[in-house]
Each structure stands twice: as structure tokens, then as C-alpha cells.
């Protein structure tokens, strides 16, 4: 899979700093699971965190702190929390591990709900600001025309869409904000399946999706 659309530095740094809401973190983690370029870029931002930690003012530990930690280590070892030495079994399937955790399995476990026009969605449960959902769009169907408020991330898992300017295929991520006005249309072929997070309700411009909006919960 050749990935052409990547995460922004801002998103990577915010994720590295631990400041992204859960809904966005899930999309970022899903993208990085399949993109070594962004994995390496994230690691370089983590290295900045390592440098900040190193140069941070030290706060003296309480007396007996090391002994207390060793005691904790020994008690955990007895409980069998010790390291599994083998590498985890490779998993195949459409969804990378972080997404599988939220769905409770792979594509066959998704609880789709029809939202009109042949489009189906499944909202995933997250805490905090923003929301994240899986979208399944049949070939040739447009994702309802919308303008954005705030940030929207769309990770392609299967199939592809065109937004009028660019093609987004498997592994690609579309990072959109207020300035983006696009009409993504699913390409011919298998259904386009995306993971999409937004931190603001979508404003639909055409009539039908506006009626559908309460049902979409977006």
C-alpha cells in the first residue's frame, strides 16, 4: 500500500504530547499502525518529549522510594505480571489493533446503521470532545456535501474516494479544517470504508442530509 496523504506535524506533536482527544487519537493511532513514515515522524516528536523530560527540573524522590519500587516489582512478578517474552502473533484483517479494540473485532463485527443514500455508519464510543465513526460508502455515492467547523480526520481503510481535487486510497488520511469545502465521492470498486473523527457537528448544505442529521448524531 502506497500512502500519499499523511498526518500533519501539529497532529503528531499533539498526539505525542498526549493532548489529542480520544476520538482523534484513535484515528491517528489507526493511521500510524499502517504508515511507517508517520510512525517514524511520531518517534521524532517523542524524542522531543524525551529531551524535555531530561531537562526538566528534578523533584527529589521520597526516602525509601527505590526500595518501595523494588517491592512493587517483586509483588507484580509473583502475580505473574512479568513480561511475555514472545512477540505477539501477527494479526491479519482490515482493521489495525487500536481500531479492533473499539469495534470488538474486525469488519464482520461492526454494527452498521443505514443513514440514507446507501451510506452506513457505526459510531464508536469515546470520552471527551469530538466523535469518531466508521463510514461505509457504496461506489459512486457521495458522502453528503458538508462544510467543516473545526478539525475533521478521515482515514481510508478500504476502497477510495475523490474529493474533487485528490484521491484518497487505503492508508491515506484526509486532514480537513474550516477552510476545506469538498465533496468526497467513493470510487468504483468495493465499498469505501473510512474512520472519521470530527470535533464539531457537520453542517450539511443539501436538504436531505440536513433532515438526516439528527439520526446521524453528528
Amino acid at each position: 500500500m502506497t500512502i500519499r496523504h499523511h498526518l500533519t506535524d501539529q497532529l503528531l506533536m499533539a498526539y505525542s504530547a498526549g493532548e489529542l482527544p480520544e476520538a482523534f487519537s484513535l484515528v491517528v493511532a489507526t493511521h500510524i499502525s499502517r504508515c511507517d513514515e508517520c510512525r517514524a515522524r511520531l518517534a521524532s516528536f517523542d524524542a522531543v518529549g524525551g529531551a524535555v523530560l531530561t531537562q526538566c527540573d528534578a523533584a527529589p524522590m521520597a526516602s525509601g522510594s527505590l526500595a518501595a519500587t523494588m517491592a512493587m516489582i517483586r509483588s507484580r512478578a509473583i502475580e505473574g505480571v512479568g513480561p511475555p517474552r514472545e512477540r505477539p502473533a501477527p494479526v491479519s484483517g482490515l482493521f489495525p489493533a487500536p481500531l479492533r479494540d473499539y469495534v470488538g473485532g474486525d469488519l464482520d463485527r461492526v454494527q452498521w446503521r443505514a443513514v440514507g443514500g446507501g451510506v452506513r455508519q457505526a459510531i464508536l464510543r469515546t470520552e471527551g470532545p469530538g466523535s469518531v465513526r466508521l463510514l461505509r460508502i457504496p461506489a459512486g455515492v457521495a458522502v453528503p456535501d458538508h462544510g467543516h467547523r473545526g478539525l475533521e480526520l478521515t482515514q481510508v481503510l478500504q476502497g477510495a474516494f475523490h474529493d474533487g481535487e485528490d484521491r484518497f486510497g487505503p492508508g491515506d488520511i484526509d486532514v480537513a479544517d474550516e477552510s476545506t469545502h469538498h465533496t468526497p465521492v467513493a470510487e468504483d470498486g468495493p465499498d469505501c470504508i473510512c474512520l472519521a473523527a470530527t470535533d464539531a457537528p457537520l453542517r450539511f448544505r443539501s436538504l436531505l442530509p440536513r433532515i438526516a442529521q439528527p439520526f446521524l448524531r453528528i
Partner: protein
Amino acid sequence: MADGSESREQEWADCVARVRDLRDEAAFASLFDHFAPRIKGFLMRSGADAATAEECAQDVMATVWHKAHLFDPARASVATWVFTIARNRRIDTIRRQRRPEPEDLGWGPEAEPDQADALALQQESARLGRALAALPDKQRTLIERAYFGDLSHSEIAAETGLPLGTIKSRIRLALDRLRHAMSQERP
């Protein structure tokens, strides 16, 4: 401008290897003396009270012991690895939020990291540390505030002024080697 920080990075990496292979308590004590007070300071700077920060710092160091086999010196310095554990502890315990993590690469003892890769990465990490220290105060403070959790995601400015390209390329190379080793093993 060498200041011995390269050899120190290497020393910490050796300590983690000794914890992993030999359950070496003296090596762990060296790591503890260096990192635990910094983790505590980091967490207090991130808004934790002293008691919570102390408890979390101990817990992070216990995780260092138990997860020593997951540390890959070709992809991170010990400080970077410890930072990621401390950050996750902050999100989990202090913020009480869930953090989805990328799929693990399935790092295992079969694929020993290339020594030259590991050395180069430790050198790059030391260089990055010096670059951070050399930034103008205002710029450095902004980066620190981002990592202490003082800034929201929309307030974070990704333009750090730090030379991240070289360290990224190093890590990318190590990832490519790891993927290659994995595909050899699982044709």
C-alpha cells in the same frame, strides 16, 4: 559540541539491557536515580501533586523493569522511552482518559537491533537534547508547555525550530530493517 551526553545515552541503554537480560538491580538503581526524580518533576509540572507524582514515578519505573524487553535502542533513547511511559501514565491515572496506541510492530528478541543503528540513534537523541537547550527561551518554553500538557491540541505549534529530519530518517531506517527482518521470518 560534545558534552558527554552521547556516552550517557549509551550508558542508559546498556542499563536497560542489563535489566532485561540479567534482572540487574544495580543497573536499575542507576536508572532510578537518574530518571525517577525527572519523571516526578515532569508530572508535577504537568499538574500532579507531589504524592501522586511520587506514586506515578515509582509505577513508571516498575514498568521500565517489566517492559525492558520492549525497549528498542534503534528507535528511541531511554529518555524518550521513559517519556512515553510517563505520558501514558499521566493520561491514564491523572487525566483518567483512554489513549489508543498504534499497533505494536511485534518486536521480539529474535530481531536484535543493529548496533550501528542503535548507536546512531543515541547520538541523534543527544544532539536533539542540545538543540532544545540552545533554543531561545521563548521558543523552548513553548515546546515544554506543549509536552507538560499546558497547551490544547489547537494551540500547539508544530514548528519547533528543532532539527527533527535527521532523527526521523534514522528511525525510519530502523523500521525498514525491522519490517525486512519480519518479512524474512514470515514469508
